[in-house]
Protein backbone atom coordinates (compact mmCIF):
# COMPACT_ATOMS: atom_id res chain seq x y z
CA UNK A 1 0.00 0.00 0.00
CA UNK A 2 1.27 3.45 -0.91
CA UNK A 3 0.19 6.82 0.50
CA UNK A 4 -0.37 8.02 4.07
CA UNK A 5 -0.82 5.52 6.88
CA UNK A 6 -4.39 5.29 8.13
CA UNK A 7 -5.83 6.75 11.34
CA UNK A 8 -7.64 4.06 13.39
CA UNK A 9 -11.06 5.14 14.69
CA UNK A 10 -13.84 3.44 16.58
CA UNK A 11 -17.50 4.04 15.68
CA UNK A 12 -19.66 5.70 16.73
CA UNK A 13 -17.56 8.86 16.69
CA UNK A 14 -18.21 11.73 19.05
CA UNK A 15 -19.03 14.91 17.15
CA UNK A 16 -15.72 16.31 18.49
CA UNK A 17 -13.83 13.38 16.96
CA UNK A 18 -15.70 13.91 13.70
CA UNK A 19 -14.83 17.61 13.67
CA UNK A 20 -11.14 16.77 14.16
CA UNK A 21 -11.03 14.89 10.84
CA UNK A 22 -10.23 16.67 7.61
CA UNK A 23 -10.80 15.97 3.96
CA UNK A 24 -8.21 13.53 2.65
CA UNK A 25 -7.59 11.74 5.95
CA UNK A 26 -7.25 8.00 5.46
CA UNK A 27 -9.00 5.94 8.13
CA UNK A 28 -9.50 2.34 9.27
CA UNK A 29 -12.79 1.84 11.12
CA UNK A 30 -13.72 -0.32 14.10
CA UNK A 31 -16.98 -0.50 16.00
CA UNK A 32 -20.67 -0.27 15.14
CA UNK A 33 -22.39 1.09 12.06
CA UNK A 34 -25.79 0.65 10.42
CA UNK A 35 -25.91 0.04 6.66
CA UNK A 36 -28.56 -0.09 3.96
CA UNK A 37 -28.89 0.59 0.24
CA UNK A 38 -32.67 0.96 0.24
CA UNK A 39 -34.52 4.00 -1.06
CA UNK A 40 -37.77 2.81 0.61
CA UNK A 41 -35.78 2.28 3.81
CA UNK A 42 -34.52 5.84 3.91
CA UNK A 43 -37.92 7.27 3.02
CA UNK A 44 -39.31 5.32 5.96
CA UNK A 45 -36.47 6.56 8.18
CA UNK A 46 -37.27 10.16 7.22
CA UNK A 47 -40.96 9.57 8.01
CA UNK A 48 -40.06 8.14 11.43
CA UNK A 49 -37.67 10.99 12.22
CA UNK A 50 -40.20 13.59 11.13
CA UNK A 51 -42.87 11.94 13.28
CA UNK A 52 -40.49 12.08 16.25
CA UNK A 53 -40.34 8.28 16.62
CA UNK A 54 -37.21 6.26 17.38
CA UNK A 55 -35.94 3.86 14.74
CA UNK A 56 -36.05 0.13 15.49
CA UNK A 57 -32.22 0.13 15.50
CA UNK A 58 -30.82 3.04 17.43
CA UNK A 59 -28.85 5.32 15.17
CA UNK A 60 -28.73 8.37 17.39
CA UNK A 61 -25.29 10.05 17.15
CA UNK A 62 -24.24 6.99 15.18
CA UNK A 63 -22.68 5.91 11.89
CA UNK A 64 -24.98 5.28 8.91
CA UNK A 65 -23.56 3.90 5.67
CA UNK A 66 -24.86 3.37 2.15
CA UNK A 67 -23.68 -0.18 1.82
CA UNK A 68 -25.17 -3.46 0.67
CA UNK A 69 -24.84 -6.44 3.02
CA UNK A 70 -25.34 -10.14 2.33
CA UNK A 71 -25.46 -12.66 5.20
CA UNK A 72 -26.84 -16.01 6.26
CA UNK A 73 -30.50 -15.58 7.07
CA UNK A 74 -32.84 -18.18 8.53
CA UNK A 75 -35.36 -15.62 9.75
CA UNK A 76 -33.82 -15.34 13.22
CA UNK A 77 -30.79 -13.30 14.15
CA UNK A 78 -28.50 -12.50 11.22
CA UNK A 79 -25.91 -15.20 10.54
CA UNK A 80 -22.40 -15.10 9.12
CA UNK A 81 -21.63 -12.20 6.78
CA UNK A 82 -21.09 -13.12 3.11
CA UNK A 83 -20.03 -9.77 1.67
CA UNK A 84 -20.54 -6.01 1.73
CA UNK A 85 -19.96 -3.16 -0.70
CA UNK A 86 -20.90 0.54 -0.89
CA UNK A 87 -23.57 2.01 -3.11
CA UNK A 88 -23.97 5.48 -4.64
CA UNK A 89 -24.91 7.93 -1.89
CA UNK A 90 -25.81 10.84 -4.14
CA UNK A 91 -29.14 9.28 -5.08
CA UNK A 92 -30.18 9.84 -1.46
CA UNK A 93 -29.24 13.55 -1.55
CA UNK A 94 -32.82 14.61 -0.91
CA UNK A 95 -33.21 12.43 2.19
CA UNK A 96 -29.84 12.71 3.91
CA UNK A 97 -30.05 16.25 5.36
CA UNK A 98 -33.11 15.22 7.41
CA UNK A 99 -31.40 12.03 8.58
CA UNK A 100 -28.12 13.77 9.46
CA UNK A 101 -29.87 16.46 11.51
CA UNK A 102 -32.70 14.32 12.87
CA UNK A 103 -30.47 11.49 14.08
CA UNK A 104 -27.42 13.61 14.88
CA UNK A 105 -25.27 11.32 12.75
CA UNK A 106 -21.54 11.71 13.34
CA UNK A 107 -20.45 9.57 10.38
CA UNK A 108 -21.96 8.58 7.09
CA UNK A 109 -20.42 7.04 4.00
CA UNK A 110 -20.70 5.10 0.80
CA UNK A 111 -19.48 6.17 -2.60
CA UNK A 112 -20.01 9.21 -4.79
CA UNK A 113 -20.56 11.70 -1.97
CA UNK A 114 -23.47 13.94 -1.01
CA UNK A 115 -24.67 17.34 -2.20
CA UNK A 116 -24.27 20.76 -0.61
CA UNK A 117 -27.44 20.46 1.53
CA UNK A 118 -25.90 17.46 3.26
CA UNK A 119 -22.52 19.17 3.55
CA UNK A 120 -24.28 22.01 5.38
CA UNK A 121 -26.14 19.58 7.67
CA UNK A 122 -22.89 17.75 8.41
CA UNK A 123 -21.16 20.99 9.39
CA UNK A 124 -24.00 21.88 11.77
CA UNK A 125 -24.11 18.47 13.43
CA UNK A 126 -20.44 17.45 13.38
CA UNK A 127 -20.51 14.61 10.88
CA UNK A 128 -18.07 13.27 8.27
CA UNK A 129 -18.60 11.33 5.03
CA UNK A 130 -16.28 8.40 4.33
CA UNK A 131 -15.64 7.28 0.75
CA UNK A 132 -15.41 3.50 0.43
CA UNK A 133 -13.88 1.87 -2.64
CA UNK A 134 -16.71 0.47 -4.76
CA UNK A 135 -16.16 -2.91 -6.38
CA UNK A 136 -13.56 -3.87 -3.77
CA UNK A 137 -15.92 -6.16 -1.92
CA UNK A 138 -13.36 -8.93 -1.49
CA UNK A 139 -11.06 -6.80 0.69
CA UNK A 140 -13.67 -4.49 2.27
CA UNK A 141 -15.70 -7.47 3.51
CA UNK A 142 -12.71 -8.68 5.50
CA UNK A 143 -13.21 -5.63 7.75
CA UNK A 144 -16.71 -6.71 8.77
CA UNK A 145 -16.72 -9.06 11.76
CA UNK A 146 -20.44 -9.68 11.98
CA UNK A 147 -23.94 -8.53 11.21
CA UNK A 148 -25.14 -8.10 14.78
CA UNK A 149 -28.75 -7.09 14.21
CA UNK A 150 -31.26 -6.14 11.55
CA UNK A 151 -34.61 -4.38 11.43
CA UNK A 152 -37.45 -3.98 8.93
CA UNK A 153 -37.45 -7.58 7.79
CA UNK A 154 -40.36 -6.86 5.48
CA UNK A 155 -37.72 -5.38 3.14
CA UNK A 156 -35.24 -7.40 1.05
CA UNK A 157 -31.93 -8.09 2.76
CA UNK A 158 -29.84 -5.20 1.44
CA UNK A 159 -32.72 -2.75 2.06
CA UNK A 160 -33.05 -3.61 5.76
CA UNK A 161 -31.31 -1.64 8.48
CA UNK A 162 -28.34 -3.93 9.06
CA UNK A 163 -26.10 -3.33 12.06
CA UNK A 164 -22.46 -4.26 11.48
CA UNK A 165 -19.50 -4.74 13.78
CA UNK A 166 -16.39 -3.51 11.99
CA UNK A 167 -12.77 -4.33 12.63
CA UNK A 168 -10.16 -2.59 10.54
CA UNK A 169 -12.70 -1.73 7.85
CA UNK A 170 -11.12 0.15 4.96
CA UNK A 171 -8.97 2.07 4.33
CA UNK A 172 -11.66 4.69 3.76
CA UNK A 173 -11.13 8.35 2.93
CA UNK A 174 -12.69 11.39 4.57
CA UNK A 175 -14.28 12.88 1.47
CA UNK A 176 -16.54 15.43 3.21
CA UNK A 177 -15.44 16.79 6.57
CA UNK A 178 -17.44 18.48 9.32
CA UNK A 179 -16.03 21.87 8.41
CA UNK A 180 -17.85 22.22 5.10
CA UNK A 181 -15.11 20.82 2.86
CA UNK A 182 -16.11 18.34 0.17
CA UNK A 183 -13.74 16.61 -2.24
CA UNK A 184 -16.67 16.10 -4.63
CA UNK A 185 -17.60 19.78 -4.71
CA UNK A 186 -13.95 20.81 -5.11
CA UNK A 187 -13.29 18.38 -7.96
CA UNK A 188 -16.53 19.17 -9.81
CA UNK A 189 -15.92 22.92 -9.58
CA UNK A 190 -12.36 22.50 -10.78
CA UNK A 191 -13.36 20.20 -13.66
CA UNK A 192 -16.09 22.64 -14.74
CA UNK A 193 -13.62 25.50 -14.70
CA UNK A 194 -11.07 23.53 -16.69
CA UNK A 195 -13.49 22.17 -19.28
CA UNK A 196 -13.31 25.11 -21.72
CA UNK A 197 -9.50 24.90 -21.74
CA UNK A 198 -9.60 21.12 -22.09
CA UNK A 199 -11.97 21.46 -25.04
CA UNK A 200 -9.71 24.07 -26.67
CA UNK A 201 -6.69 21.80 -26.19
CA UNK A 202 -8.42 18.95 -28.04
CA UNK A 203 -7.92 20.81 -31.27
CA UNK A 204 -9.27 18.13 -33.58
CA UNK A 205 -8.93 18.78 -37.27
CA UNK A 206 -12.11 20.72 -37.72
CA UNK A 207 -14.32 19.26 -40.40
CA UNK A 208 -17.09 21.38 -41.75
CA UNK A 209 -19.95 18.88 -41.82
CA UNK A 210 -22.36 20.95 -43.81
CA UNK A 211 -24.50 19.09 -46.29
CA UNK A 212 -23.02 18.96 -49.72
Amino acid at each position, binding site marked *: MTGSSPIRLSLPLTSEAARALKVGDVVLLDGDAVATVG*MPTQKRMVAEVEAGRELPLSLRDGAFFHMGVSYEDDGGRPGAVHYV*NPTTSSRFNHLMPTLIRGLGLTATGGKGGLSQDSVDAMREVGCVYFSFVGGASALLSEGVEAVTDCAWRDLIM*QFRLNRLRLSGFGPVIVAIDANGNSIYERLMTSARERLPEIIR*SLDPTEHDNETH
Partner: protein
Amino acid sequence: MAITYELVKEVTANLYDWSLRRIPESSKAEFRKALATETEPQARQTLAFMLDSAERAETTGKFLCSDAGVPSYSIKIGSGARMEGDIRQAIVDGFAELTRTIQPPLLRFVTNPLTNERSFHGKDMPLVSWDLVGEGDYLDITCAPKALGGGRWAAVEILVSPSLGEIERCILEIVLRAGGQHCPPVVIGVGIGGTFDHAAKLSKDATLRPFGERNPEPMVAEMEERLTRAVNQMGFGPMGVGGATTTFGVHVEYASGHGFTPVAVSFNCWINRRTRARIYNSGVVERIE
Protein backbone atom coordinates in the same frame (compact mmCIF):
# COMPACT_ATOMS: atom_id res chain seq x y z
CA MET B 1 -24.19 -31.19 -34.91
CA ALA B 2 -25.79 -28.06 -33.54
CA ILE B 3 -25.61 -25.53 -30.75
CA THR B 4 -28.09 -26.91 -28.25
CA TYR B 5 -30.42 -25.50 -25.62
CA GLU B 6 -28.50 -27.37 -22.90
CA LEU B 7 -25.12 -26.01 -23.96
CA VAL B 8 -26.30 -22.41 -24.23
CA LYS B 9 -28.02 -22.68 -20.85
CA GLU B 10 -24.84 -23.94 -19.19
CA VAL B 11 -22.42 -21.55 -20.92
CA THR B 12 -24.46 -18.37 -20.39
CA ALA B 13 -24.97 -19.17 -16.70
CA ASN B 14 -21.25 -19.87 -16.27
CA LEU B 15 -20.28 -16.65 -18.06
CA TYR B 16 -22.37 -14.64 -15.59
CA ASP B 17 -20.94 -16.48 -12.59
CA TRP B 18 -17.33 -16.04 -13.78
CA SER B 19 -17.86 -12.36 -14.56
CA LEU B 20 -18.68 -11.68 -10.90
CA ARG B 21 -15.34 -12.96 -9.60
CA ARG B 22 -12.54 -11.59 -11.79
CA ILE B 23 -11.71 -8.50 -13.80
CA PRO B 24 -10.56 -8.76 -17.43
CA GLU B 25 -6.82 -9.20 -18.08
CA SER B 26 -6.73 -5.97 -20.09
CA SER B 27 -8.08 -4.10 -17.05
CA LYS B 28 -5.33 -5.52 -14.86
CA ALA B 29 -2.75 -4.30 -17.37
CA GLU B 30 -4.25 -0.79 -17.24
CA PHE B 31 -4.10 -0.78 -13.44
CA ARG B 32 -0.41 -1.62 -13.55
CA LYS B 33 0.24 1.13 -16.10
CA ALA B 34 -1.71 3.67 -14.03
CA LEU B 35 0.17 2.71 -10.86
CA ALA B 36 3.39 3.50 -12.71
CA THR B 37 2.23 6.96 -13.81
CA GLU B 38 -0.34 8.24 -11.29
CA THR B 39 1.32 10.75 -8.95
CA GLU B 40 -1.45 11.57 -6.42
CA PRO B 41 -0.78 9.46 -3.29
CA GLN B 42 -4.47 8.92 -2.58
CA ALA B 43 -5.17 7.89 -6.15
CA ARG B 44 -2.26 5.44 -6.04
CA GLN B 45 -3.55 4.03 -2.79
CA THR B 46 -7.03 3.58 -4.24
CA LEU B 47 -5.73 1.95 -7.43
CA ALA B 48 -3.57 -0.44 -5.43
CA PHE B 49 -6.51 -1.36 -3.18
CA MET B 50 -8.71 -2.02 -6.21
CA LEU B 51 -6.16 -4.25 -7.89
CA ASP B 52 -5.43 -6.11 -4.62
CA SER B 53 -9.13 -6.65 -4.05
CA ALA B 54 -9.68 -7.91 -7.61
CA GLU B 55 -6.81 -10.35 -7.17
CA ARG B 56 -8.24 -11.49 -3.83
CA ALA B 57 -11.64 -12.06 -5.46
CA GLU B 58 -10.06 -14.06 -8.26
CA THR B 59 -7.91 -16.28 -6.04
CA THR B 60 -10.61 -16.92 -3.42
CA GLY B 61 -13.65 -17.03 -5.72
CA LYS B 62 -15.29 -14.10 -3.92
CA PHE B 63 -17.46 -11.52 -5.64
CA LEU B 64 -15.88 -8.28 -6.86
CA CYS B 65 -18.96 -6.30 -5.86
CA SER B 66 -21.99 -6.89 -3.66
CA ASP B 67 -24.13 -5.68 -6.53
CA ALA B 68 -24.11 -8.47 -9.11
CA GLY B 69 -25.89 -6.25 -11.62
CA VAL B 70 -28.56 -7.36 -14.03
CA PRO B 71 -27.42 -10.03 -16.49
CA SER B 72 -26.73 -8.58 -19.92
CA TYR B 73 -25.54 -10.58 -22.92
CA SER B 74 -24.33 -9.50 -26.36
CA ILE B 75 -24.51 -12.39 -28.78
CA LYS B 76 -22.98 -12.48 -32.24
CA ILE B 77 -24.38 -15.17 -34.47
CA GLY B 78 -22.24 -16.53 -37.28
CA SER B 79 -24.32 -17.11 -40.41
CA GLY B 80 -23.25 -20.76 -40.38
CA ALA B 81 -24.48 -21.39 -36.83
CA ARG B 82 -27.08 -24.13 -36.42
CA MET B 83 -29.25 -23.96 -33.34
CA GLU B 84 -31.42 -26.60 -31.73
CA GLY B 85 -34.15 -25.78 -29.23
CA ASP B 86 -35.29 -22.46 -27.78
CA ILE B 87 -31.99 -20.61 -27.39
CA ARG B 88 -33.53 -17.48 -25.86
CA GLN B 89 -35.28 -19.62 -23.24
CA ALA B 90 -32.00 -21.40 -22.53
CA ILE B 91 -30.52 -18.10 -21.31
CA VAL B 92 -33.56 -17.38 -19.14
CA ASP B 93 -33.49 -20.88 -17.64
CA GLY B 94 -29.73 -20.84 -17.10
CA PHE B 95 -29.97 -17.58 -15.15
CA ALA B 96 -32.93 -18.84 -13.11
CA GLU B 97 -31.04 -21.97 -12.12
CA LEU B 98 -27.90 -20.01 -11.29
CA THR B 99 -29.73 -17.65 -8.94
CA ARG B 100 -30.97 -20.69 -6.99
CA THR B 101 -27.59 -22.38 -6.67
CA ILE B 102 -24.78 -19.77 -6.78
CA GLN B 103 -22.58 -19.40 -3.68
CA PRO B 104 -22.42 -17.02 -1.96
CA PRO B 105 -26.05 -16.13 -2.70
CA LEU B 106 -26.86 -13.12 -4.86
CA LEU B 107 -28.85 -10.18 -3.57
CA ARG B 108 -32.03 -9.31 -5.48
CA PHE B 109 -31.31 -6.76 -8.18
CA VAL B 110 -33.75 -7.44 -11.01
CA THR B 111 -36.16 -4.54 -10.59
CA ASN B 112 -39.60 -3.99 -12.08
CA PRO B 113 -39.30 -0.34 -13.17
CA LEU B 114 -43.00 0.34 -12.65
CA THR B 115 -43.35 -1.05 -9.12
CA ASN B 116 -39.72 -1.11 -7.91
CA GLU B 117 -40.32 -4.71 -6.84
CA ARG B 118 -37.07 -6.70 -6.81
CA SER B 119 -36.49 -10.35 -7.54
CA PHE B 120 -34.28 -12.66 -9.61
CA HIS B 121 -36.43 -12.59 -12.72
CA GLY B 122 -38.46 -10.11 -14.72
CA LYS B 123 -39.63 -8.96 -18.09
CA ASP B 124 -36.91 -9.18 -20.78
CA MET B 125 -34.43 -10.63 -18.25
CA PRO B 126 -31.67 -11.46 -18.99
CA LEU B 127 -31.13 -8.56 -21.38
CA VAL B 128 -29.83 -9.95 -24.68
CA SER B 129 -28.83 -8.32 -27.95
CA TRP B 130 -28.39 -10.43 -31.09
CA ASP B 131 -26.24 -9.50 -34.09
CA LEU B 132 -25.68 -11.50 -37.22
CA VAL B 133 -22.01 -11.49 -38.24
CA GLY B 134 -19.86 -13.08 -40.98
CA GLU B 135 -19.90 -16.71 -41.88
CA GLY B 136 -18.82 -18.38 -38.64
CA ASP B 137 -20.35 -21.60 -37.33
CA TYR B 138 -20.70 -20.31 -33.79
CA LEU B 139 -22.47 -18.14 -31.23
CA ASP B 140 -20.03 -15.62 -29.74
CA ILE B 141 -21.45 -14.68 -26.34
CA THR B 142 -20.29 -11.81 -24.14
CA CYS B 143 -21.74 -11.41 -20.67
CA ALA B 144 -21.39 -7.97 -19.05
CA PRO B 145 -23.62 -7.52 -15.98
CA LYS B 146 -24.73 -3.94 -15.40
CA ALA B 147 -25.47 -2.21 -12.11
CA LEU B 148 -26.56 1.26 -11.09
CA GLY B 149 -23.10 2.69 -10.46
CA GLY B 150 -22.01 2.32 -14.07
CA GLY B 151 -25.43 2.24 -15.68
CA ARG B 152 -27.15 5.42 -14.60
CA TRP B 153 -24.85 8.02 -16.18
CA ALA B 154 -25.22 6.94 -19.81
CA ALA B 155 -26.81 9.54 -22.10
CA VAL B 156 -27.72 10.20 -25.71
CA GLU B 157 -27.77 13.70 -27.21
CA ILE B 158 -28.95 14.35 -30.73
CA LEU B 159 -26.95 17.00 -32.57
CA VAL B 160 -27.72 18.50 -35.96
CA SER B 161 -24.92 18.56 -38.55
CA PRO B 162 -22.23 18.89 -35.86
CA SER B 163 -18.53 19.43 -36.49
CA LEU B 164 -16.12 16.89 -35.01
CA GLY B 165 -15.24 19.48 -32.36
CA GLU B 166 -18.90 19.84 -31.40
CA ILE B 167 -19.26 16.07 -31.12
CA GLU B 168 -16.24 15.88 -28.83
CA ARG B 169 -17.53 18.74 -26.67
CA CYS B 170 -20.85 16.95 -26.33
CA ILE B 171 -19.07 13.78 -25.19
CA LEU B 172 -17.03 15.67 -22.60
CA GLU B 173 -20.11 17.42 -21.23
CA ILE B 174 -21.79 14.05 -20.67
CA VAL B 175 -18.60 12.81 -19.01
CA LEU B 176 -18.47 15.91 -16.78
CA ARG B 177 -22.07 15.35 -15.64
CA ALA B 178 -21.11 11.86 -14.43
CA GLY B 179 -18.16 13.28 -12.49
CA GLY B 180 -16.57 10.53 -10.44
CA GLN B 181 -19.86 8.83 -9.56
CA HIS B 182 -19.45 5.69 -11.67
CA CYS B 183 -16.59 3.99 -9.79
CA PRO B 184 -13.71 5.19 -11.96
CA PRO B 185 -11.33 4.36 -13.59
CA VAL B 186 -14.12 3.61 -16.06
CA VAL B 187 -14.29 2.48 -19.64
CA ILE B 188 -16.18 5.02 -21.74
CA GLY B 189 -18.03 3.81 -24.83
CA VAL B 190 -19.08 6.34 -27.45
CA GLY B 191 -21.48 5.68 -30.31
CA ILE B 192 -21.89 8.34 -32.99
CA GLY B 193 -24.39 8.45 -35.82
CA GLY B 194 -27.07 6.14 -37.15
CA THR B 195 -30.25 6.58 -35.15
CA PHE B 196 -30.98 7.02 -31.44
CA ASP B 197 -31.11 3.27 -30.78
CA HIS B 198 -28.22 2.43 -33.07
CA ALA B 199 -25.89 4.98 -31.44
CA ALA B 200 -26.78 3.64 -27.99
CA LYS B 201 -26.00 0.10 -29.14
CA LEU B 202 -22.67 1.19 -30.65
CA SER B 203 -21.79 2.92 -27.40
CA LYS B 204 -22.52 -0.23 -25.40
CA ASP B 205 -20.54 -2.36 -27.84
CA ALA B 206 -17.63 0.09 -27.52
CA THR B 207 -17.49 -0.47 -23.75
CA LEU B 208 -17.00 -4.19 -24.41
CA ARG B 209 -13.80 -3.69 -26.39
CA PRO B 210 -10.68 -4.72 -24.41
CA PHE B 211 -8.33 -1.91 -23.38
CA GLY B 212 -5.32 -1.50 -25.63
CA GLU B 213 -7.32 -2.04 -28.82
CA ARG B 214 -7.96 1.06 -30.86
CA ASN B 215 -10.56 1.68 -33.54
CA PRO B 216 -8.97 0.51 -36.83
CA GLU B 217 -9.67 3.83 -38.56
CA PRO B 218 -6.78 6.24 -37.77
CA MET B 219 -9.06 9.28 -37.54
CA VAL B 220 -11.23 7.55 -34.92
CA ALA B 221 -8.22 6.09 -33.11
CA GLU B 222 -6.78 9.61 -32.77
CA MET B 223 -10.11 10.81 -31.45
CA GLU B 224 -10.05 8.05 -28.83
CA GLU B 225 -6.60 9.05 -27.66
CA ARG B 226 -7.51 12.73 -27.58
CA LEU B 227 -10.68 12.11 -25.58
CA THR B 228 -8.93 9.76 -23.14
CA ARG B 229 -6.36 12.47 -22.37
CA ALA B 230 -9.11 15.11 -22.07
CA VAL B 231 -11.20 13.03 -19.63
CA ASN B 232 -8.18 12.36 -17.45
CA GLN B 233 -7.38 16.08 -17.34
CA MET B 234 -10.71 16.64 -15.56
CA GLY B 235 -9.12 15.28 -12.39
CA PHE B 236 -11.91 13.15 -10.87
CA GLY B 237 -9.55 10.19 -10.42
CA PRO B 238 -10.10 6.72 -8.94
CA MET B 239 -13.45 6.56 -7.03
CA GLY B 240 -13.90 10.26 -7.80
CA VAL B 241 -11.64 11.41 -4.96
CA GLY B 242 -8.99 13.00 -7.17
CA GLY B 243 -6.24 11.99 -9.55
CA ALA B 244 -5.27 11.65 -13.19
CA THR B 245 -6.90 8.25 -13.77
CA THR B 246 -10.61 8.74 -14.41
CA THR B 247 -10.75 6.50 -17.48
CA PHE B 248 -8.60 3.68 -18.80
CA GLY B 249 -9.89 4.36 -22.26
CA VAL B 250 -12.50 6.09 -24.42
CA HIS B 251 -13.65 3.74 -27.18
CA VAL B 252 -15.47 5.23 -30.16
CA GLU B 253 -17.64 3.54 -32.77
CA TYR B 254 -19.64 5.28 -35.47
CA ALA B 255 -22.22 4.62 -38.13
CA SER B 256 -23.34 6.67 -41.09
CA GLY B 257 -26.59 8.45 -40.60
CA HIS B 258 -28.48 11.52 -41.72
CA GLY B 259 -28.06 15.23 -40.83
CA PHE B 260 -29.06 14.51 -37.24
CA THR B 261 -26.25 12.89 -35.29
CA PRO B 262 -26.97 10.98 -32.11
CA VAL B 263 -24.01 10.94 -29.72
CA ALA B 264 -24.30 8.21 -27.11
CA VAL B 265 -21.95 7.81 -24.17
CA SER B 266 -21.99 4.95 -21.69
CA PHE B 267 -19.73 3.83 -18.90
CA ASN B 268 -18.62 0.72 -17.14
CA CYS B 269 -17.10 0.84 -13.68
CA TRP B 270 -13.52 -0.21 -12.92
CA ILE B 271 -14.35 -3.88 -12.32
CA ASN B 272 -15.57 -3.88 -15.92
CA ARG B 273 -17.23 -7.28 -15.54
CA ARG B 274 -17.02 -9.07 -18.85
CA THR B 275 -16.62 -12.68 -19.91
CA ARG B 276 -16.86 -14.16 -23.39
CA ALA B 277 -17.06 -17.57 -25.01
CA ARG B 278 -17.83 -19.11 -28.38
CA ILE B 279 -20.00 -22.15 -28.84
CA TYR B 280 -19.38 -23.92 -32.15
CA ASN B 281 -21.76 -26.17 -34.08
CA SER B 282 -19.44 -29.04 -33.09
CA GLY B 283 -20.29 -28.50 -29.42
CA VAL B 284 -16.82 -27.16 -28.65
CA VAL B 285 -16.83 -24.23 -26.22
CA GLU B 286 -13.95 -21.77 -26.52
CA ARG B 287 -13.46 -19.41 -23.57
CA ILE B 288 -12.18 -16.09 -24.95
CA GLU B 289 -12.35 -13.85 -21.87
